[in-house]
């Protein structure tokens, strides 16, 4: 680790990030005014439903937005360096060395026709050309051992389809960690895995991260996973941050009606009817004026300000940031069940 990085200096600083899609004359805003910092060694979790913009946000950080989308404004500083507008060659060197990535489906990230060992070794050397094949291979074996792959030397002679989903995801974690990144981005890393394996993979991830002192952005729709792994949490809805705070505070005293409703609608196993959130998230093409959550919101109660004025993200007395005009009412009502 670079000694000049102190714990209070953010590793990654995203400001007013805006991601747009230009289709014809129409400009669709998919991510709007997203700002956050990631500090060295911490785990920041981003939760939200599909279409909330959580994955696009981190794809933008890595410079991997799909061709149809572009960054429409804002700034992304990684270790003090502006990432937006950086040539592809430099971005590539930052990915892999500075930032490691683990995606949801490990099968699509591995070449099915090649043995696992050489693939991983090659990926390491791509970002670190000075490493000899032998060194790179030794590094991978070592990391695989760390993430819980037994007898890595023998098992990496297999092809990807011969490995289980959990094993493949461990391989991806080993690959992402190979060049000691300061930041690991994990987008739904365990969603495709069975429950018992999920827990093991998250443990492996935690172990290897602790050993390397890497920070992590964990993207998930699973609130349980967020609680177990993150220190701070961002809740996104329809392209914006609606709540941001310490995980424990957000869970115990949600300051946005969406967060509160999401927590209430979790299937916790009781037999009683689940208080579901009515309706669906709006399409980014016709987001309501004012607050995007207003049409589904129980707190809105027909008040004009909700449908007329877009709430800005602001501090509340609980310590969390909230983008709700009436966050204080929620705090007065008390904690969510």
């Amino acid at each position, binding site marked *: 680790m670079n000694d000049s990085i102190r714990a209070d200096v953010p590793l990654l600083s995203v400001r007013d990030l805006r991601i747009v899609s230009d289709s014809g004359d129409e400009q669709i805003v998919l991510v709007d005014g997203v700002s956050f910092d990631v500090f060295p060694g911490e785990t920041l979790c981003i939760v939200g*439903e599909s279409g909330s913009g959580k994955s696009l946000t981190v794809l933008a950080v890595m410079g991997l937005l799909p061709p149809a989308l572009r960054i429409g404004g804002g700034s992304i500083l990684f270790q003090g360096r502006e990432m937006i507008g950086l040539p592809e060659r430099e971005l590539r060197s930052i990915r892999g060395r500075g930032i490691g990535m683990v995606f949801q489906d490990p099968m699509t990230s591995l070449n099915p026709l090649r043995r696992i060992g050489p693939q991983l070794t090659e990926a390491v050397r791509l970002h670190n050309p000075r490493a000899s094949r032998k060194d790179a291979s030794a590094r991978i074996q070592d990391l695989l051992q760390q993430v819980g792959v037994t007898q890595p030397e023998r098992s990496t002679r297999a092809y990807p389809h011969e490995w289980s989903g959990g094993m493949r995801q461990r391989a991806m974690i080993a690959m992402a960690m190979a060049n000691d990144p300061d930041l690991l981005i994990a987008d739904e890393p365990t969603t495709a895995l069975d429950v018992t394996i999920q827990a093991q993979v998250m443990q492996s991830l935690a172990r290897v991260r602790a050993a390397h002192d890497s920070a992590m952005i964990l993207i998930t*729709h*699973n609130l349980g996973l967020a609680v*177990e792994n993150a220190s701070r949490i961002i809740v996104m809805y329809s392209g914006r941050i609606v709540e941001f705070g310490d995980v424990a505070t957000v869970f115990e005293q949600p300051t946005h009606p969406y967060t509160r409703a999401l927590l209430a609608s979790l*299937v916790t196993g*009781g037999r009683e009817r689940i208080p*579901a959130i009515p309706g669906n998230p709006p399409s980014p093409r016709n987001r309501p004026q004012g607050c995007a959550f207003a049409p589904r919101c129980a707190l809105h109660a027909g008040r004009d300000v909700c449908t007329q004025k877009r709430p800005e993200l602001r501090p509340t007395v609980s310590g969390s940031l909230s983008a709700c005009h009436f966050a204080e009412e929620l705090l007065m009502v008390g904690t969510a069940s």
Partner: protein
Amino acid sequence: MSGSETPLLEIDDLRVQYKRKRLFGASTVLTAVDGVSLSLQRGKTLGLVGESGCGKSTLMRSLFGLTPIVSGSIKVMGEDVTGSGRRARRRLSSRMQMVFQDPYSALDPRMTVHEIVAEPLRLAGRYRAQEVTDLLDRVGVTAEMARRKPSEFSGGQRQRVGIARALALSPDILILDEPVSALDVSIQAQVLNLLADLQQSLQLTYLFVSHDLSVIRHIADDVAVMYRGRIVEEGTSERVFAHPADAYTRSLLAAIPAMGPSEARRRRATAAESEPSPGSAAPEA
């Protein structure tokens, strides 16, 4: 309910085997379902839990005659349908229907939603437009939306359409294969509530397959846990969740993510280190 009533669906000692032919050497046999017995009572929900490769998908496909059954029997409303042919199968389709996990791939993208729900009625030769409208209304899809194609629908709306289609022939039994697993949290709750409402108003019987134990605990009256082709634990939902007798069930329960910060802290350290692997070639998709 009296215990003497004939179960709606009764699976007895079912065994399904796949033979894997090798180019050279002996062929190997994989027993995907190994002596499974289950029974469903009218109006109740049986939750079937298990991880990928445990044989639960094979078991479901067996109910529709899609697997090589070696021994055992499947009875629907007392009638043995284990090896029945096409005609009997068609008759069966008005008693038992399936709802699939992925609402994105289960619906024909070229048809309108109305046509999708109408199709089973057309095939049965009793299509009436009003009936389709009523079915869609039941699951919360308006007549205006029914003119659109599924691509314009969200995941939750598509799953509603999948349910309406499954209900078209007024079956008694729904086989639900991970029906909410692909949906967002807030939408999962909507669909689970809808399934509970439909069960009550139509007296439906559910076989609800899921790997999500919180969902099973919420919806199921009885639970069966499947592991490596066998049922390792079975009982009322209450009993299985409160006092799991089997070691595998206990490890599954321990792996449910915690639902609050304090519970999470308590659990953070403890988790079993056992990755099940049901042979190298699981026959499931």
